[in-house]
């Protein structure tokens, strides 16, 4: 343990274990954060601070499939807004929301590294690129 109360390994271990929880439960439940805090001997607010910082970790339950559309400049210039609107229309939800049947959560993300094929989005781990509003219906159909 360092004097700050967190060993380097502890912090590294923290992110790894948060990621594990995320893939196991689809989000990081509060009980898991409490357990982590206890086993790493750090305050729970510290765990929450880390968990809430990363956009690929969620502190609230998400839908079965998570859509992340890039809202950074290159995608924006290539018409990401029309894609965002198409998703909104198709699912009837706004960014930050989850469909009532729990099938999709919809989020906006910062650059996902696919600028050369903008506009782009991720659904779960899959990249979908060179999007147009027309493509959306078909793509979403692939996710149950």
């Amino acid at each position: 343990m360092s004097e700050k109360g967190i060993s380097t390994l502890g912090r590294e271990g923290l992110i790894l274990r948060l990621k594990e929880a995320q893939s196991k439960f689809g989000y990081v439940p509060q009980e898991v954060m409490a357990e982590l805090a206890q086993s790493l001997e750090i305050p729970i607010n510290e765990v929450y601070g880390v968990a809430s910082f990363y956009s690929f970790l969620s502190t609230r339950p998400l839908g079965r499939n998570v859509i992340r559309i890039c809202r950074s400049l290159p995608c924006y210039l290539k018409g990401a807004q029309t894609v965002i609107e198409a998703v909104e229309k198709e699912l009837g939800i706004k960014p930050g929301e989850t469909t009532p049947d729990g099938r999709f959560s919809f989020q906006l993300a910062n650059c996902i590294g696919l600028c050369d094929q903008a506009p782009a989005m991720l659904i779960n781990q899959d990249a979908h690129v060179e999007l147009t509003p027309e493509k959306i219906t078909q793509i979403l159909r692939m996710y149950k």
Partner: protein
Amino acid sequence: MENKVNLTLNGRAVSARQGMTILEVARENGIDIPTLCYLEDFSPMGACRLCVVEVEGSRTLVGSCHTPVTEGMVVHTHSPKVLAARKILVELLLASHPDSCLVCDKANICELRRIAADLEVGLPRFHARKHYYPVEDENPHIIRDMSKCILCRRCVIACKSAGNGSMFSVAYRGFESKVVFGCDQLVDEAAVCPDFDGCIALCPSGALRKPVKIGEERAEKALIIKG
């Protein structure tokens, strides 16, 4: 014998001990550089940027609270460029700050307000979305109003160093950043700390304050705001 460093501070030759920051040297020489996140005796956070100064030969302004002095350095702490930058920084802090000095419990001792007045910031030019968080006033020892928090992180550091773990952490990211208690819960009656006064005294804004009962004297001395 410690190594001496010679530098020029606002046109005056001064000498300092090796390892001192520009801010420390300036303060030792009676020059007032405004700071909002700096805490003596703790490692600098460099969060607020208010302490920026001009160092000749440097492409950008540098944070004086975390930049050590070097031999031959030529520093300007109040050049027009510096003052303009500081003024904008405060304007940006105020852009998402509630316009409530008039009824703010800490207005008499608010460092943010004093610095804004000192820099002659004037009426707001920028308007950003404001944060509205509920006032957390359930606890008998502390009131938190995160709408007024400027994210200086002083309370986080102070709490950590009080030695009983830390109650506060910065959570979320970007504009959504917030100092949270627990898993972003309200500081309730049950929250206990042997030294709430520590962080309250260090908070430069009205975000943390002490509940004052009617009729009770206020302990703090009022800040004098230059007219």
